[in-house]
């Protein structure tokens, strides 16, 4: 009987969802939107336009520009400016900074004299100012080393912990997949369950011989199908558009499916608790981004201090991010093993089921 009711409620919810093709389309768009959102976030300021005015035009000035371009920075050098035009553009917000190589730069360097590099910065955002302040000394050091300045006696000897580098945007896009799973699956499941209370159909369930929770789980499973469709589109866009090549594709698929199911159960618990669709959707959407940022999306959360790291353990996204970063990029971003992360997610599933079970009859009777 349990399986029959589960299957009937699954079928009923699938019928209902697929009678709203616009909703399905929105789910797919929403899944992909998160990838764009975090990408934009990662790319913000990465190509900040910076005018470079070379008054010298000598060989050493050209060499310095090459060093500047190779230095670690997040700006993009633009060369077709004179000072007046550049100043006008920086005031209009079209440029972030102006870097000026003075006339006589090459001669001064050749004669071992100090040559000042002029810089004008729009310090509306100190992140940008600091980027220029970091990049210039780095470029000057490289330039000096290449020119054989004897005064530079220190250099870094880098040894990487991981055998491959990971692009910041890629790191974020991968973890955005579990964010999308939380938002889509949580909202679809939460709304499906809350609407039972709103339309009072839950009363019909309550007077039937079976516990309404069985029906809710059937609805969550149906909402999971639509969530998986949305996530499949997001994964395809991630693989093709961002060129992500998962190291362990099956594990990636596994963690996404598990995330969809568990976040669906969390949505169900919220639906039972709140009994109204709109607050459920608003709540999940409202907390998703803070939870996402809170769960090691920029870098392993333990880098931000023990307090934040400890608090992050109370969000299911922390464990899901840990598993997916390992599955796709081979990174270990949580000290806990993948198995422990899966167990923690299973714990969240049990908690969501327990809360739903405890509250269902109570909330119907109230």
């Amino acid at each position, binding site marked *: 009987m349990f399986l029959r009711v589960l299957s009937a409620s699954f079928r009923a919810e699938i019928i209902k969802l697929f009678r709203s093709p616009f909703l399905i389309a929105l789910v797919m768009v929403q899944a992909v939107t998160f990838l764009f959102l975090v990408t934009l976030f990662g790319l913000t300021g990465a190509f900040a336009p910076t005018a470079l005015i070379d008054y010298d035009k000598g060989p050493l000035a050209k060499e310095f520009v090459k060093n500047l371009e190779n230095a670690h920075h997040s700006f993009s050098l633009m060369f077709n400016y004179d000072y007046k035009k550049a100043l006008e553009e920086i005031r209009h917000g079209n440029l972030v900074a102006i870097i000026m190589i003075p006339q006589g730069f090459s001669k001064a360097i050749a004669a071992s004299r100090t040559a000042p590099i002029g810089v004008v910065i729009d310090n509306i955002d100190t992140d940008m100012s600091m980027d220029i302040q970091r990049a210039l000394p780095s470029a000057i050091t490289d330039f000096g080393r290449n020119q054989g300045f004897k005064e530079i006696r220190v250099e870094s000897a880098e040894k990487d912990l991981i055998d491959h580098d990971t692009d910041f945007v890629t790191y974020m896009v991968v973890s955005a997949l579990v964010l999308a799973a939380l938002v889509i699956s949580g909202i679809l499941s939460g709304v499906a369950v809350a609407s039972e209370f709103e*339309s009072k159909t839950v009363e019909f369930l309550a007077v039937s011989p079976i516990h309404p929770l069985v029906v809710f789980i059937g609805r969550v499973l149906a909402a999971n199908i639509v969530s998986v469709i949305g996530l499949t589109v997001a994964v395809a866009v991630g693989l093709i558009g961002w060129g992500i090549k998962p190291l362990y594709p099956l594990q990636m698929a596994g963690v996404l499916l598990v995330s969809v199911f568990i976040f669906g159960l969390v949505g169900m618990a919220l639906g039972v608790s709140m009994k109204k669709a709109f607050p459920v959707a608003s709540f999940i959407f409202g907390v998703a981004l803070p939870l996402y940022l809170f769960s090691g999306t920029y870098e392993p959360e333990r880098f931000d201090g023990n307090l934040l790291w400890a608090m992050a353990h109370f969000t299911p996204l922390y464990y899901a991010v840990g598993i997916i970063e390992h599955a796709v990029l081979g990174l270990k971003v949580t000290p806990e093993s993948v198995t422990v992360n899966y167990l923690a997610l299973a714990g969240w599933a049990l908690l969501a089921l327990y809360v739903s079970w405890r509250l269902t009859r109570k909330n119907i009777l109230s």
Partner: protein
Amino acid sequence: MEITVAFNKVDYKIGTTTILNNISLDIKAGEITGFLGLNGAGKSTLLSLINGLRNQTSGKITLLGTELPSDDGRLRSKIGVVFQETALYEELTTFENLEFAAALYNLENTKERITEVLELLKLMDRKNQIVKTLSGGLKRRVAIARGFLHDPQLLIIDEPTLGVDVEARHAIWSHLRLLKSQGRTIIVATNYLDEAQALCDMVAVLHKGRLLTTASPDYLVSRAGYCLDVECDAEAGEKFIDILSGKKGVLRADTTPSGLSIFLKDRTLKKQMLDIIVGTGKINGFRFRSPDLAEVFKSLQEKNDHVP
């Protein structure tokens, strides 16, 4: 006769507010029993104590031999409930709603049973229509169909004809009478005395959470009196009241904005009273009707006693 539901000194309170007060009542098997009362009388609450959506604060309720509250799924499968707000899945078709209900009640031969019920309630032509596109009357019929799909021993219906047109109202009444003729026990909560008269073997009259009386609908109507409304001016009305007061067969006479209402013990007194009135003064018109629910309440409260 077998008792399907027995209330014994039942109270239901929300916080310190008493919603139902000391209800004792037996509902007999195979009958249609009505819970009659104005809005807020406690009818729906009384129904929800039977269907398990609420638990009594004190007192004892026995349903089909089992004391309530009970978590017994087998007991719930013996009752069918039709809610005031239908509680149908609006995005599904009539058939899909019934198919889902069939799964909840683990029915066998689902398609045959659904077809049988749809035919009984004349809903076959609406089988594949999405519920939200149905009229209020049709939705209520679908809800009734769902309520007795699993062939319950007891069918509980809250406001069976709320918001439906006259034609649908009579159709629903005839379906309920048919179900009764098949041996089912039915409880309806209603605001309408004519509905109680049309359907019920017995009614329990509720007022502000108290059970005023239990009686047959016809008895209640006769107790309140058959009403003769007379249209006349105020001066003539006063004169008529003076003449009619104390006359044999006149239960009472009240002034109304358009004249007066005279309550007669017997229908047959109508002509005799009209003759007296017309012989006494000028009237603009008259009509003879059954009393309404408010008038029944008034008669019950005036006498303040229990009817057998």
